[in-house]
């Protein structure tokens, strides 16, 4: 079985701070991590590899330093990795990103499964998975909280807001993982020595390597663009003691809860 896992290097959003003046993110000192849902996707690929044997290739698009994230994936047990890195990719929205990834998948040759995270914690779009599936004209199952494979049949529990559905499809297919799918393993000591050593198994491809037109990727090709960014309105400062009768206080509190969309 051949599995391609698409991952993204993201800033640890728990550590992100915003410059209140400019409304931009302060990147300095913010650690970069392997996107959590993508880690679940990789774990699922590695579980399938442990059970039945599989070749697991990790694919990402990003700046050169995204290679660090690929090394983490290799240290967890992936077989090889591809980094799409080229200035031409910069500013790609999900539409343009899926073009580049699809071209890379085609270049990699055949596959049985593409696994990726439901969404990345920086953009939170959950769009690249389905759009990649569309580009490759294959079936998709998103929000997978379980995955079983029997010959060429893939069966997943797809999480819904009010339960889940069991969905079946045939390979090749693209599945997006949520954290309920599994518990990702740690890098192994041995894997760390290999992946972070001199000869890590990472290929770097640019637009020219993918054989696609530069007009299909990057900021200019992207239908959507950021018009402006800003800090969320700050939380009202200081405490407010409610007063009045019990009913008045309860009413004021209910109004506040309604404002917060809790009721």
């Amino acid at each position: 079985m051949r599995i391609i896992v698409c991952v993204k290097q993201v800033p640890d959003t728990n550590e992100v701070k915003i410059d209140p003046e400019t409304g931009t993110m302060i990147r300095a000192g913010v650690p970069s991590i392997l996107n959590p849902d993508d880690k679940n996707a990789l774990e699922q690929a590695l579980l399938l590899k442990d059970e039945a044997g599989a070749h697991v290739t990790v694919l990402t698009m990003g700046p050169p330093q995204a290679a660090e994230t690929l090394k983490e994936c290799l240290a967890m047990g992936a077989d090889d990795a591809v980094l799409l890195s080229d200035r031409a990719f910069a500013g790609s929205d999900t539409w343009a990103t899926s073009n580049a990834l699809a071209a890379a998948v085609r270049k990699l040759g055949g596959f049985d499964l593409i696994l990726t995270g439901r969404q990345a914690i920086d953009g939170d779009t959950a769009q690249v998975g389905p759009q990649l599936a569309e580009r490759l004209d294959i079936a998709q199952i998103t929000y997978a909280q379980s995955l079983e494979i029997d010959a060429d049949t893939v069966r997943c529990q797809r999480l819904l807001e009010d339960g889940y559905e069991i969905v079946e499809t045939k390979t090749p297919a693209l599945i997006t993982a949520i954290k309920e799918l599994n518990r990702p393993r740690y890098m192994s000591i041995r894997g760390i020595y290999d992946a972070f050593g001199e000869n890590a198994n990472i290929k770097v491809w640019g637009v020219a390597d993918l054989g696609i037109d530069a007009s299909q990727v990057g900021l200019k090709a992207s239908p959507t663009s950021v018009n402006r960014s800003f800090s969320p309105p700050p939380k009202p400062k200081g405490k407010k003691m409610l007063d009045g009768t019990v009913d008045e206080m309860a009413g004021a509190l209910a109004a506040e809860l309604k404002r917060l969309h809790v009721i």
Partner: protein
Amino acid sequence: MHLQLTKQQEIIRQMTADFSAREVRPIAAEIDNTETFPMQTVEKLFKIGVMGMNLPREYGGAGADEIAYAIAVEELSRACAATGGIVAAHNSLCCWPIWKYGTEEQKNKYLPKLTSATIGAFGLTEPNAGTDASAQQTVARRQGDSYVLNGSKVFITNAGVAGIFVIFAMTDKSLGTKGISAFIVEKGMPGFSLGKKEEKMGIRASSTCELIFRDCAIPRGNLLGKEGEGFKIAMSALDGGRVGIGAQALGIAQGAFDEAVAYTKQRVQFGKPISYFQNTRFKLADMETNIQAARWLVYGAAFKRQTGKPHSKEAAMAKLFASETAMEVTTRALQLHGGYGYIRDYPMERMMRDAKITEIYEGTSEVQRMVISADILK
């Protein structure tokens, strides 16, 4: 001079810190309270390759360097000293001497087990042979193709859970330390049994028991090294062991310091966080300085060991300074917590109890001073 960790060492720190935060810290208080050996954690440590990490790949190890090993023990001990100590005893005192002194046959038989599933232990200390390890009373008598062991060992880390033991015994009393030999003993060998499980002040989740040998016959092939090499094997294993305990002590100190910094920023007295007061600030400054000094001594000793040069003094200094730092830092950090430090809701009292053992085992602070001074005056 190149005072920088390698990329691999940095990533090993990240990974073990992450493991420690998610797998070790959440259960640290409970396993201390209930004196429960963290078997599931150790199974996970086998899986990620921390158990036996320094061994070459042909035996299932990762071929990791000594500094990476110290970092792993440090990060585990930062959350739970018992867990760090389990790893240190396994790697330094059982894996290492078998790899260093074992025959190819012994290595092929035992090392793959020690990197995959079987915990190791080391039996040197006896009721009457502590600091004076040369006063061994356990005897090994040659009988045909076997050695027959009689005697007992006390305070043996990992004893209750280990499958493979490196045991020291007198093969020839008349030769003194030169009459001590080392043996590989397996759990379940006839005549080998566990004695009393100790109830300890600290590192309560680690298994510490007495080992009893009653006409325990061991195949001759399980002699480790040559007859009479036992004392040398023990002392060289303890050099590595002391780097491990230094790292454990360093982890305890760092863990207590982290708690103290967080707490003093939170705790408000006289209308201000107590981190505002100079008494707190100067204490934190001293703690941090000592911890950094301990860290360089530990990594320095690990580095020297990695180069293969003699490092008994460096290991002794690292262990001495780091363990006394752990004791001092935990005591001060507890004091900064006031009454909350003294109750079990906070990890301070556990860390302070745990710190004490690092001044005692694998050579007391006094033994370390003996080793260091002997080297100075040799």
